[in-house]
């Protein structure tokens, strides 16, 4: 699988192959027909206007529309062009589609995939276009993946579409520019499987998306000093590979979580809580969280940078847990 592909192109390939493979699958979102966004470019031309539908700026209604289509036996992909667009649709997400199968006593499950583009901060996207809101979905019990490499993007996008439950795919802007090996075939990865991006023995760093790549880079630097970082990437935030997390932390005895969602009740808090219960006896040092500050992301570069998790802060935390 030496074929190299860009991250967003990998998502696009997954969408094309999934639509080809399942004629009952359709996709809704905003401004797809004109194909200004690379992930959906050409989809409309390929699959036509009854399978690729441009929606009005009605996030709540078109989310419920997808739910109703699924209740009627359809399979649907819903695209939100910016991560904060889940907020106008929030009731239809956390209070409707996420709850209906259970409230209905399992009469039907709802195969709806939520593709959330533009997740995360960077480049002055400011207060309403920089959120990484996956913790809201995790708290609501919505299955959620956070692909790091182009290969993950294709494999997890396909996995999300294959699932018979609502699954959210968060695509972090920080890796849009990256390329990597992506299999040509339509092969879904598995939910609930983390990956050791880099093996190490002294400290476990839990990180996904661009932050996983930064952690691996830091690991290379610290190697010089004989510090051995293990970088564990969850990839699937819900279900979470708790066994994989536990194995890594039990091995290293030290845990730093490096995550770009808000700190309070964020993903890092959940990981810390898990480790503090499951790995307590193996822990040699306090668990450290290196996260986004609980502050709105500002526009101006120096203050934006100040509020985001950085490799320097990760390094400081690593050194701190090494005592």
């Amino acid at each position, binding site marked *: 699988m030496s074929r190299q592909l860009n991250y967003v192109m990998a998502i696009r390939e997954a969408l094309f192959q999934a639509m080809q493979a399942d004629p009952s699958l*359709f996709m809704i979102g905003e401004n797809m027909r004109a194909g200004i966004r690379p992930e959906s470019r050409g989809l409309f031309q390929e699959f036509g206007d*009854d399978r690729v*539908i441009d*929606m*009005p700026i*009605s996030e*709540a*209604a*078109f*989310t*419920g*529309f*997808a*739910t*109703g*289509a*699924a*209740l*009627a*036996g*359809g399979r*649907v992909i819903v695209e939100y062009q910016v991560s904060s667009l889940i907020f106008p649709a929030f*009731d*239809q997400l956390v*209070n*409707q589609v996420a709850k*209906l*199968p*259970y*409230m*209905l*006593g*399992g*009469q*039907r*499950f709802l*195969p709806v995939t939520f593709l959330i583009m533009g997740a995360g901060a960077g480049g002055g996207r400011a207060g309403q276009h920089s959120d990484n809101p996956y913790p809201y979905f995790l708290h609501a*019990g919505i*299955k959620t993946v956070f692909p790091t490499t182009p290969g993950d993007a294709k494999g997890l996008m396909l996995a999300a579409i294959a*699932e*018979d*439950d609502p699954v959210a795919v968060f695509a972090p802007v920080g890796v849009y520019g990256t390329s990597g090996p992506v299999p040509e075939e339509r092969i879904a990865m598995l*939910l*609930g499987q983390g990956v050791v991006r880099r093996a190490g023995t002294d400290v476990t760093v839990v990180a996904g998306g661009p932050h996983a790549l930064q952690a691996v880079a830091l690991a290379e630097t610290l190697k010089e000093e004989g510090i051995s970082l293990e970088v564990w990437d969850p990839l699937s935030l*819900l*279900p*979470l590979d*708790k*066994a994989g997390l536990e194995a890594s932390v039990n091995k290293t005895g030290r845990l730093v979580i490096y995550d770009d969602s808000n700190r309070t009740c964020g993903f890092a808090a959940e990981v810390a*809580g*898990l480790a503090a*219960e*499951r790995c307590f006896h193996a822990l040699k040092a306090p668990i450290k969280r290196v996260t986004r500050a609980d502050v709105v992301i500002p526009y101006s570069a120096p203050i934006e940078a100040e509020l985001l998790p950085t490799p320097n802060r990760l390094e400081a935390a690593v050194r701190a847990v090494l005592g």
Partner: protein
Amino acid sequence: MPDADKQSLDTDAALYRRMRLLRRFEEMAGDLVRGGEIQSAVHDYIGQEAVAVGVCAALGPDDVITSTHRGHGHILAKGGDPARMLAELLGRESGYNKGRGGSMHIADLDLGIFGANGIVGAGAPMACGAAFMFKTRGESHVAVPFFGDGAMNQGVLLESFNLAVMLHLPVVFVCENNGYAVTTPIGEVLKGSILERAAGFGLAVEAADGMDVRAVRATAERAVARAREGGGPSFLEFGTCRYSVHNISAGAAWQDERAEAELADARGRDPIDRLAREMLAEGLWSPEDRTRIDAEVESELEGGLGFARNSRRPDPESAYDFMYARLYPGLPARGTDS
């Protein structure tokens, strides 16, 4: 499951029988609330029977409805089994939702009942999604979201009006205007006309007397026929009256400010008595027929209540079932594991 003929509403006697079933079902639910067998909220449908029954008389088994917090009437009108509904209200495993849902979430997808909903307006976009599936599959089915006057101010419903028009969907929006949202008169929160608001979205609109089941049926039949033939979505408003307080479990505490006169007037136009009177005047039946049907309804409900009471509650360990189609280790998380 009620047998097929029980489902058809193509005679006036069937309309009467069904309305009577709705009425007595809710009265029974009220007794169960007062008797302490139901603790939770129950928003009864008494007084509004003609709307659900008249509309569902225009629908077939493959058509779909979405309902509201006040859903019992819609579900029974669409053919829901009172026994399984009562079992749900009593929290039994044999209930429609296996005891997971209760009054505000009863559904029977096989009967095209996409569920009551605890959030005002939330079902409407789902009806649009179902209608879209019908359209793309080349099916001639219709989707009917029921909602109240108060829902006319909820964004997701208004967005749904646009979706239905934009995609020319076979949707018939049904607004049950009982004049109040809990205690708030619609005139205080919606100035002007409900019909004009809907028409402004490009929906074909029509209103009829929601206390006259035949008028409701005739109106619904026109809208449903147009939708089936690809004529697009429409919006129907039916004026009606909720006789009870908003939520009978809250009881007298929630007594609203409606003048007795207002309620008395509505009771004077009671949809069930009205149809019965008309049928008698038209010689469509005899008082004995009515008595017989009433008795049938009683025994159906008695049987249903017996079935419900004799069913067992869900096993605690089953509480985790149905959250997901596919489970994973540690999913869903329990409250004590990590």
